[in-house]
């Protein structure tokens, strides 16, 4: 089982991102479960959402306490919330930011986790350009697909199209943003000498 924890703020779509990831995995024939942290969050409040991907029925209802991957939609949370709680040494970290981990004051993460599994991407900027709104949630899943290979970019695109089927234009712009961030992530990983995409854990 592969467990993902999303951190964002109310209004950024963390819950939708978790649901989209579950949908993408489902479309590839896997079992998936997504759920929010159940707060009565308002715009701007910290939000946590969870997603589990597996090869058989997922029964547990525990929140994800030991994630395999963290997706940080809002980088301003990194010093406010205990984001990295429970993340194992082989864990992935995907941060939405134009800055490097070092610039975010997270340089020490490289000491605790495998550097090739740490990535920052400018998802908000890509979303702003592609979608016209600073909504990075769906697009970030493109980078997630590149970073972890847990789902294909095709499955992510298909999930986005299904979720936004009432508004095909919004769907296509999100698909384009996800595709761009998929490519960007691949290039960053290669450019940094991190060509290893990371095999999916068991």
């Amino acid at each position: 089982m592969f467990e993902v924890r999303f951190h964002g703020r109310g209004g950024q779509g963390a819950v939708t991102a978790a649901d989209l990831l579950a949908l993408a995995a489902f479309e590839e024939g896997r079992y998936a479960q997504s759920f929010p942290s159940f707060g009565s969050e308002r715009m701007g409040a910290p939000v946590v959402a969870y997603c589990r991907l597996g090869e058989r029925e997922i029964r547990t209802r525990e929140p994800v306490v030991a994630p395999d991957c963290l997706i940080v939609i809002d980088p301003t949370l990194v010093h406010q919330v205990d984001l990295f709680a429970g993340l194992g040494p082989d864990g992935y970290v995907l941060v939405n930011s134009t800055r490097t981990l070092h610039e975010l004051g997270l340089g020490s993460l490289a000491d605790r986790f495998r550097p090739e599994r740490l990535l920052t991407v400018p998802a908000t900027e890509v979303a702003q350009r592609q979608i016209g709104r600073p909504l990075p949630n769906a697009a970030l899943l493109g980078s997630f697909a590149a970073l972890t290979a847990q789902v294909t970019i095709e499955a992510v695109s298909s999930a986005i199209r299904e979720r936004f089927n009432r508004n095909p234009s919004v769907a296509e712009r999100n698909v384009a943003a996800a595709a761009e961030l998929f490519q960007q992530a691949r290039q960053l990983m290669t450019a940094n000498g991190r060509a290893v995409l990371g095999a999916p854990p068991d």
Partner: protein
Amino acid sequence: MLRQIEGSRAVAETVALCRPEVVCAYPISPQTHIIEALGELVKTGELTPCEFINVESEFAAMSVAIGASAAGARAFTATASQGLLFMMEAVYNASGLGFPIVMTLANRAVGAPINIWNDHSDAMAARDAGWVQLFAETVQEAADLHIQAFRLAEEVSVPVMVCMDGFILTHATERVDLPTQEQVDAFLPPYVPRQVLDPADPYSIGSMVGPEAFEEVRYLAHARQLTALGRIGELGAEFAEAFGRDSGGLVHPYRSADADVVVVAMGSVLGTIKDVIDTQRAAGHRIGALGITSFRPFPIDAVRNALKGARRVVVVEKAISVGFGGVLSTDVAMTLSGLPVPVATVVAGLGGRTITKTSLGDVFEAALGDQLAPLTFLDLNRGLVERELERMALHRRSGPTAENMLRDLGVTGSRIG
């Protein structure tokens, strides 16, 4: 059709397949997504004919459902927590009059303190209201139970409450096999009311009944629930035959046949419990579980049969009868009367407190080692409690308890899980 779908949406779409004719909507977390989705289905014309009525309170929601049912329509509503308590007078009225209303209860704690998160306090408060209460373990089961609920309710003239854990199931997406309209139509015939307000055949419904007949009316309500007890098992089997899924029924045993310790629970926590049991089984412990789907009517025989071979029973329940202890465990202990099987109560998950595998594993191990106390509050923060007790002992005007404890805890917004 297999879908990755949110629990509320799955329930709403399934309810729509049941062709409700009147849907009453009043928002309360965590059931709002259900009535929102039904409202949308009515507005788009996908669910027709159906009157979707935005009422001004839960009391009105149940009352509109009562009126609709009395006039011969299939009626549905959904609520949770305070909403259920606010409509409680009408909840009793619906069952007393024998109207087959189906209601989703998105289980949520009852305040004060106000709390929107999941536990079973609301359902337990309605335990004696005369409704059938079915508990869903998964989103799939929650959806499937609604189809069976309408059939059961209308067959035996008893309203049915389908209980699904708020947020944990209502807001989770998972893989769900949603049936087709043809499948549901084949399972659920049109509603033929036993009593109906009809100018062509006018009679009075809702007369005052004095001591001369009240006990008999109540006895018949009990008898209808006993009839339902038999039908729940049969309908579950019929449903499995028609839909290819084992949803519903009275109880669901899990690796309990040879178990020393059997864990009894209701709702979504059974999933987590099963994972823990698999781990402990792998470590060589003889432990199993018994999921109870039908809480009212309570399946005394099925529970006794499933538990009579156990050395010890642990009831994990998301409710407390304040001043006594467990609610479900009281019923379980009663079914085991005369048998040398001690029943321990583990009160867990109140107000949305996370029930972790680690904590469950600890209490199950304690039970296996005969070390589990009769009543355990899972993961109770004793220090927090002691500090407040100390404050109360020291100062007469110690202030509001909940606020004092929140101050002691400090910032909680950053906590995970």
